[in-house]
């Protein structure tokens, strides 16, 4: 409840009509100012130490526009994005299934725990190289290698989620004779949702970094391939252009897909006051 003292009505009225708008804009403004400061310090640094290896932001932007105009950017971004999506779906599906099984059955967990730790600690590079050697320089090997890198992380997170399942809901579902599908939809999934969200968040960031390595080592398109190409040409502006373009896309996915979905999935927690 807002309290107003009489006599200051006009003044109070003006501030209250102004400040909510300002408050609503503050987070956006903060980000804008912070990005502006980053841009200015980058420009300043590049101007102070002019070098081909450290281009100013304007040149990166120009390169980005050129690449976009030629269609190169969209093609390579698309290729990388498709690989990220495929490996992500594969890793989340397989990792969740195994994680839930291990979290539910203690015997299986005791047996396979060593495997999980083993795979968790194999360097990404080793898996990629082995995948290319065993399955050839093809798309299946590339996507599979990325997924295998991510699966152990998903297993560990989802296993924790399955261990934390509340027995009372399962018992309620038993008494009220929920069908298998209902149990999955209304009991299991909502309880695992936070773990799933955590696994996806950390997953998507890890996956796109590994996809670049996979592309660098054995593919002839994608952001990773382009970065390797421009590395040989020592074209830092292009390398940064591709990096920033992809980061921007990931940011858009986060803002337009992940966050609205999460808001929907957690609406029952009640809105903050």
């Amino acid at each position: 409840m807002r309290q107003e003292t009489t006599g200051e009505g006009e003044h109070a009225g003006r501030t209250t009509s102004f400040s909510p708008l300002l408050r609503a804009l503050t987070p956006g403004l903060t980000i804008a100012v912070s990005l502006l400061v980053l841009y200015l310090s980058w420009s300043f640094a590049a101007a102070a130490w002019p070098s081909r290896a450290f281009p100013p932001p304007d040149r990166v932007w120009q390169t980005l526009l050129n690449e976009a105009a030629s269609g190169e950017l969209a093609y390579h971004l698309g290729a990388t994005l498709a690989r990220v999506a495929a490996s992500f779906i594969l890793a989340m599906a397989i990792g969740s299934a195994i994680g839930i099984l291990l979290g539910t059955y203690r015997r299986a967990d005791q047996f396979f725990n060593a495997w999980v730790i083993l795979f968790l600690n194999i360097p990404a590079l080793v898996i990629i190289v082995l995948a290319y050697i065993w399955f050839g320089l093809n798309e299946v090997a590339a996507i599979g290698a990325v997924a295998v890198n991510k699966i152990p992380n998903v297993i560990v997170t989802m296993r924790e989620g399955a261990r934390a399942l509340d027995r009372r809901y399962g018992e309620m579902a038993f008494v009220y004779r929920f069908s298998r599908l209902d149990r999955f939809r209304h009991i299991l999934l909502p309880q695992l949702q936070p773990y799933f969200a955590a696994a996806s968040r950390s997953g998507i960031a890890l996956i796109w970094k590994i996809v670049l390595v996979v592309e660098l080592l054995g593919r002839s398109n994608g952001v990773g391939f382009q970065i390797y190409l421009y590395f040989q040409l020592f074209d830092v502006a292009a390398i940064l252009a591709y990096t920033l373009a992809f980061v921007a896309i990931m940011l858009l996915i986060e803002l337009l897909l992940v966050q609205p979905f999460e808001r929907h999935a957690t609406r029952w927690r009640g809105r903050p006051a």
Partner: protein
Amino acid sequence: MQPVGAAAPLRVDIAEKTFRSAEGIAVKALENLSFEVRQGEFACLLGPSGCGKTTTLRILLGLDQDFKGSFELPTSETGRIAAVFQEPTLLPWRTLEQNVRLGLPKARRNIDLDWLFKALGLVSVRSLFPAELSLGLARRAALARAFATEPAILLLDEPFVSLDEQTASRLRYLLLDIWSARPTTALMVTHNVREALMLSDRIIVLSARPAHVLGYFDVRLPRQSRNPQVMSDLARSFSQKFPDVM
């Protein structure tokens, strides 16, 4: 009144139920516990805290199958058991109404439940999530879920515990109203003698652990006439019959 679909009584005959603690020590919870609840009757299982009342209910619900003995549940065309747990156990991620409807079989999910929500005073909150409900409202929702299934038997595990006395007694009247409208065999666990005297046709008095039946106390008065005067008379004759319980 002829109870809906109830045909057989509830017969319980548990020879033994033993828990094993983490250190391997065996604790006998139930021993030679046998009783019967006639069809359409509201019975209370009354006993000291920790005597194995909840364990008995869990066995009847099929949640605990590690025991010696047998039991027989009443049947009806729905053939369902409904439970009201000690905690409301509503799914926090579903609205109150979804919670109630999820308890129903698929074919009956869309039946008209307005009478039930109206009777329990839940009409204005049916689209809220459990986190937005008070404990009293959540308990009412749990009752709604149980009654919506039109069960052959209703098992209640201290459904009014940890509410303030005023709310608890309002809920007891609500329970009576709705149970009288759709009577069904009911077994309620409680350690509150007054609650048992107010609600039940028959009180089954249990001993301390390992629980067995000490005796029955039948209340043959119609519930409408159980006013404060009558209640204190009932309480007096109850404490004469079971001096150690009160």
